[in-house]
């Protein structure tokens, strides 16, 4: 049945640890991971609670395919109410940690309350305990990870932890596992910090129970062959990683630069995935648990510093978005953000917002104190202000640590914040790709590229090529992508598999692993339920349809150049159709009948 059948409930206020049965009746409706934990969160907290209060809960969850041989079956999700958007947060991470949570015997961990002092949680197969973390508080991610592996006595133990940014409640703090993999978005690290929880260590050797091992193995072998035979997952991603996109997106005219004031960047090649290889910085690629793609980058810089990354998004927001292309600085800043436990996208876009604000007179020079000016093109500023934000070391950085929307709004210029629902946008300009722009606008966590990656059909041509400027028919694609992605996330697999696999492929593997015997349509129905459940949570939290929009720049300032010159985003043409396809009211509210039909209420 693929589930371990047990989950941990840890109350950090009183130190109690309980083992409970995984609610398999709910798993049949919400799959696992993001879906199941989201439903549990909705059942157990008032969506209106302060995200950083003890009343919020923090759930680490695996999916049914985590800890199986399914390709990429090692992911986990962190589900909570996030401080950045104020809505449901579900951050997904790779590496090994998710598989090891199940190897220790648990499908998920529900963390409640707030510890009176810094602690960490040790989840070993034979013993679970809360331990003192006074010696770790203030430490960066690599030192914390190494120390905890040594303390566990098990060299293969896996550590998920926060860095200084999470401790300081930076609204876009990440949770890092195995040093380099991030549950990055929506500020889940700040929630962990608010609970005085520094880390969770996992280790065990248990296998996930599969009803028919032979059948499952044969299916998995078939799916791996499909992934390896696909041009994207079998060639482009292994060779160049996600940074292969730099030139693709720039040449297609939707590569934002200078805080989205422009849609292309002249020197993109200098910092692209190709340049990373040609300059000799890439030492090897590596993969997460059971991954046949292996897109992770192991990099060594001329200055001797080593680390993983950068991914496409990070390379962009630590480079061209800020007006420079120095690959050394980009990589170094990526290493630093990982060490500090910062979400790179929100950190980079917040800095770019500040650069535009300074350029236009909304930040005074004296606010930098002795630090470098936040000016486009100033490479010095990036490393300096990343660190300042993580530690909240001066007044300006302290305000930036709330994210670009709060920061720009309190200074009277919210139009410079490139966010949707309060979360910073990723590296695809909505003026160049109409469907993806809608994905940001109506996404349950706002500015985000992994809830419905319409770049696949609109730019890459997978599974078929759509015109990026067309609006007709796009909302049906968005509907299907949102539902399917909800299932993929909740199953514990990586979204990258979807470049090669179809909805039927996921249904095959889920049926063989869980024994549920659902049709593909029934699995997609689970995805629809998950999507609506998340939106229902947000609505209860006070985030209504009025937030289904984009920064006004994309409506008022046409693209300056390239193939999309003169284009704006055409949200008003698409939003009513999206609501209609979803079965919501014309105002974007989920009607009671829909909630009942999906068995959400």
């Amino acid at each position: 049945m693929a589930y371990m059948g047990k989950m941990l409930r840890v109350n950090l206020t009183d130190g109690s640890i309980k083992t409970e049965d995984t609610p398999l009746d709910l798993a049949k409706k919400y799959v696992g991971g993001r879906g199941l934990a989201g439903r549990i969160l909705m059942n157990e907290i008032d969506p209106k609670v302060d995200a950083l209060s003890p009343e919020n809960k923090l759930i680490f969850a695996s999916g049914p395919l985590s800890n199986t041989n399914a390709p990429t079956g090692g992911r986990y999700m962190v589900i909570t109410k996030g401080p950045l958007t104020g809505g449901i947060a579900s951050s997904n991470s790779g590496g090994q940690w998710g598989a090891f949570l199940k190897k220790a015997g648990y499908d998920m961990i529900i963390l409640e309350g707030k510890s009176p002092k810094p602690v960490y949680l040790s989840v070993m197969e034979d013993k679970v305990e809360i331990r003192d973390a006074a010696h770790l508080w203030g430490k960066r991610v690599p030192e914390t990870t190494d120390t905890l592996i040594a303390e566990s006595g098990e060299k293969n133990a896996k550590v998920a932890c926060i860095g200084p940014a999470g401790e300081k409640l930076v609204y876009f703090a990440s949770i890092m596992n195995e040093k380099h993999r991030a549950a990055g978005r929506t500020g889940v690290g700040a929630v962990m910090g608010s609970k005085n929880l520094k880390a969770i260590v996992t280790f065990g050797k248990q296998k996930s129970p599969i009803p028919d091992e032979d059948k499952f193995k044969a299916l998995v072998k078939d799916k791996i062959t499909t992934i390896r035979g696909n041009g994207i997952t079998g060639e482009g991603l292994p060779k160049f990683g996600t940074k292969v996109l730099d030139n693709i997106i720039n040449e297609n005219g939707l590569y934002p630069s200078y805080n989205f004031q422009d849609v292309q960047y002249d020197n993109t090649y200098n910092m692209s995935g190709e340049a990373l290889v040609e300059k000799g910085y890439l030492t090897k690629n590596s993969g997460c648990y059971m991954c046949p793609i292996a897109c992770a980058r192991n990099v060594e810089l001329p200055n001797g510093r080593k680390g993983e990354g950068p991914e496409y998004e990070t390379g962009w927001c630590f480079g061209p978005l800020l007006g420079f292309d120095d690959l050394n600085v980009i990589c170094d800043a990526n290493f630093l953000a990982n060490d500090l436990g910062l979400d790179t996208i929100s950190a980079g876009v917040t800095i770019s917002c500040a650069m535009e604000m300074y350029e236009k007179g909304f930040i005074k020079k004296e606010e930098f104190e002795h630090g470098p000016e936040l000016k486009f093109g100033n490479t010095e500023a990036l490393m300096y202000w990343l660190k300042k934000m993580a530690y909240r070391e001066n007044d300006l950085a302290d305000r930036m640590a709330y994210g670009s929307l709060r920061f720009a709004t309190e200074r009277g210029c919210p139009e410079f914040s490139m966010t949707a629902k309060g979360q910073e946008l990723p590296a695809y300009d909505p003026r160049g790709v109409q469907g993806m722009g809608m994905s940001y606008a109506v996404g349950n966590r706002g500015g985000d590229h992994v809830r419905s990656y319409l770049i696949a059909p609109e730019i890459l041509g997978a599974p078929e090529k759509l015109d990026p400027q067309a609006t007709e028919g796009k909302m049906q694609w968005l509907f299907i992508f949102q539902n399917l992605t909800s299932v993929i996330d909740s199953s514990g697999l990586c979204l990258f598999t979807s470049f090669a696999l179809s909805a039927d492929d996921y249904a095959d593997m889920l049926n063989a692993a869980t024994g549920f015997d659902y049709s593909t349509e029934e699995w997609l129905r689970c995805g629809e339920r998950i999507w609506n459940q998340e939106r229902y949570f947000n609505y209860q939290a006070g985030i209504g349809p009025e937030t289904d929009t984009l920064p006004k720049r994309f409506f008022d300032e046409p693209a300056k150049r390239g193939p999309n010159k003169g284009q704006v985003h055409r949200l008003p043409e698409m939003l009513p159709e999206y609501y209609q396809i979803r079965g919501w009211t014309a105002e974007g509210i989920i009607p009671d009948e829909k909630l009942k039909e999906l068995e959400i209420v």
Partner: protein
Amino acid sequence: MGMTVKFFATLRAALGVGSVELEHDTPMTVREVLERAEQETGKPIMQELFEDDGSMRIGAMVLVDGKNISHLNGLDTTVQSETLSVFPPAGGG
């Protein structure tokens, strides 16, 4: 007239050059441009981009001044002095 054909990702590595410059007197189709580029580099390009049935491989693309030929006239798209950007199958996120 002059035309620049730029190569990216694994194709760039396979060809060993980042771009080729082509001189021509009359407008050409994208198919003719790619065939000329194959002659210039001495290495296959078309087979990296297209399936046996002539359809574009998933993730591959040919852009004419940033516009995908899938939304123009495919390989029969006529070009004069534009820049062509050629990508073998690639993607990410």
